């Protein structure tokens, strides 16, 4: 996450800036794949500290200047005269990394510098600090070189001559080299050990991260599965959720999965321009898919009508616009009428009258429900003249009517869908069902996007990942949708 972001910024950054240092840090640690590939790479946390300072400038070299810089290591390493021959010709990390690095510029860059730094660390303190500063000078000289592209040619020679100057100076002190050998050898060995240990530690840490990431995704999948099976609902619902409701929720979740499958079939069927016979099978299959949910709702209404009518089973956005435990048929027609443009006159009349009649039916049912509420209010808000238990008994009797209303509403929905199927041609019906399915799919996605919107900044990555997934779903459906 952070690494991706910074990686992108690092790649797009071309101008000079003081922010390169932190970029390099992340750039250095972050290519976990790169590091895992370069098993024996010389770059590890121990050497990171010095790399931070010295690598700052080299980020700029990454993309365009990689080949240019490839020639540089020799020049850089010339500055460490204690190891003149061995480390000039075999910058071990760098050669290896050139072969293995997936990220060409930075990999080379990282490892040449890191190897040079590895060598730097293996020297005695004073030579290291001196060389550190001289390499810094070298980098600083390089810096103006990269910044002014036009001035590239004249500058390298002065910087190279500058680097060679201290190099020559150091090569003069050969006797002091031999005196330092024993101490530096021991130090070398210690540093090697330390570097090796930190490499191992890093490897172990990365492996631990990887395994916990895998565990996390597995847990998420289990959670998803369990939730869809109503496990959580049962756990937190407790006494409030009847088994009828739980069963319905489970079956509804399964229905949603089926819906997704049907939508896929419809979409591919339309795109592939299947013959009408095949398309008819798919369309009728979708219709019976809807018959199935109405049947399930009918059964659920018997055991827990409030669960249905209050829309606990639906996503928040759906729930907000719920009418009598489901969609409003006239709303559906309104959505469709704009999407089904090539209609014959007769079809258009048919759809308009369907919309009209569904509106009238909805109005009638709504008024009936209002009457029910009014009579309930009259019963339980009645004065003290009616005895309490009697009131409740009457009210209970009135509540049983709710089931009837939900059933009539579902009945209305079912007949609307069937009548639509009759008015339209197979192809039109397929498009129409696709529109309906996609609309509700997006409404559901909207709900989950809303739930995980950035306002809840304390939320973990799960939500943002889900948001991304939902966005992908929305985009994917949009892409398909635009084909029609």
């Amino acid at each position, binding site marked *: 996450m952070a690494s991706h972001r910074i990686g992108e910024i690092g790649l797009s950054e071309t101008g000079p800036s003081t922010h390169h240092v932190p970029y390099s840090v992340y750039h250095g640690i972050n290519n976990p794949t790169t590091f895992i590939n370069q098993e024996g790479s010389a770059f590890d946390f121990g050497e990171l500290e010095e790399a931070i300072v010295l690598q700052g400038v080299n980020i700029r070299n990454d993309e365009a200047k990689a080949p240019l810089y490839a020639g540089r290591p020799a020049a850089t390493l010339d500055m460490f005269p204690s190891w003149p021959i061995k480390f000039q010709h075999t910058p071990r990390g760098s050669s290896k990394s050139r072969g293995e690095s997936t990220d060409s510029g930075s990999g080379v860059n990282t490892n040449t510098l890191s190897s040079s730094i590895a060598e730097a660390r293996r020297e005695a303190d004073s030579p290291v600090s001196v060389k550190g500063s001289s390499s810094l000078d070298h980098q600083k000289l390089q810096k103006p070189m990269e910044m002014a592209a036009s001035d590239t040619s004249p500058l390298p020679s002065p910087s190279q001559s500058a680097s060679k100057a201290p190099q020559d100076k150091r090569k003069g002190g050969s006797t002091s080299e031999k005196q330092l050998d024993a101490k530096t050898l021991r130090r070398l060995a210690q540093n090697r050990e330390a570097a090796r240990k930190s490499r191992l530690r890093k490897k172990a840490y990365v492996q631990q991260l990887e395994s916990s990431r895998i565990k996390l995704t597995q847990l998420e999948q289990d959670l998803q599965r369990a939730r869809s099976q109503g496990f959580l609902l049962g756990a937190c619902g407790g006494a409030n959720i009847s088994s009828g409701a739980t069963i319905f929720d489970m079956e509804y979740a399964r229905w949603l999965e089926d819906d997704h499958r049907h939508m896929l079939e419809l979409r591919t069927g339309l795109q592939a321009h299947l013959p009408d016979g095949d398309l008819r099978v798919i369309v009728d299959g979708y219709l019976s898919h809807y018959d199935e949910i109405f049947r399930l709702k009918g059964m659920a209404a018997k055991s827990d009508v409030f669960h249905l009518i209050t829309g606990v089973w639906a996503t928040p956005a759906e729930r907000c616009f719920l009418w009598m435990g489901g969609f409003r048929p006239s709303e559906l027609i309104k959505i469709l009428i704009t999407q089904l443009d090539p209609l014959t006159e007769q079809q258009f009349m*048919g759809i308009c009258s369907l919309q009209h*009649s569904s509106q009238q039916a909805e109005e009638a049912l709504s*008024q009936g429900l209002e009457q029910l509420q009014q*009579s309930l209010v009259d019963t339980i808000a009645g004065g003290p003249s009616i005895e309490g238990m009697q009131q409740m008994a009457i009210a209970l009797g009135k509540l049983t*009517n709710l089931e009837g209303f939900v059933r009539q509403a579902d009945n209305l929905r079912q007949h609307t869908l069937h*009548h639509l199927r009759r008015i339209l041609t197979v192809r039109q019906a397929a498009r129409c069902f696709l529109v309906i399915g996609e609309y509700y799919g997006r409404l559901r996605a909207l709900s989950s996007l809303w739930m995980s919107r950035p306002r809840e900044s304390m939320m973990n990555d799960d939500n943002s990942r889900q948001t991304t997934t939902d966005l992908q779903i929305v985009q994917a459906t949009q892409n398909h949708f635009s084909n029609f």
Partner: protein
Amino acid sequence: MQYQAESSWGYQMTGSMRRGGGRGVAGMGGDSSDPLERVVRLASESAVVVFSVSSCCMCHAVKSLFCGMGVSPVVHELDQDPSGKEMEQALALLLGSYGVAPAVPVVFIGGKLIGAMDRVMASHINGTLVPLLKEAGALWL
């Protein structure tokens, strides 16, 4: 039609069983106190007849539906009828919903049984309700 046969059946009770032989309801002297007969008779009297119970909200819904369409049905409130209980039972038997669902509301158009609320809704969505109403003379648009 049926009304006519029934009354003649009543008069022919002791004679041959030629007319109306298939009637399951045993003639109680052919009087109109037979609940089903009463229902049928009432249903034939007007273009649109609704059997309802005044406290039933689904009946209210049906009434709203017709009023919304510009139809004025004749409503018989069975709870205000002396033989209402029996008529309700007869209706339930007619619909086949005895003990399963409430017997009311029941709608007759042009003397013909349409059914309970679900059938009325279905026929409205299917577009068959309006032609029926026009045919019965309840709607003039």
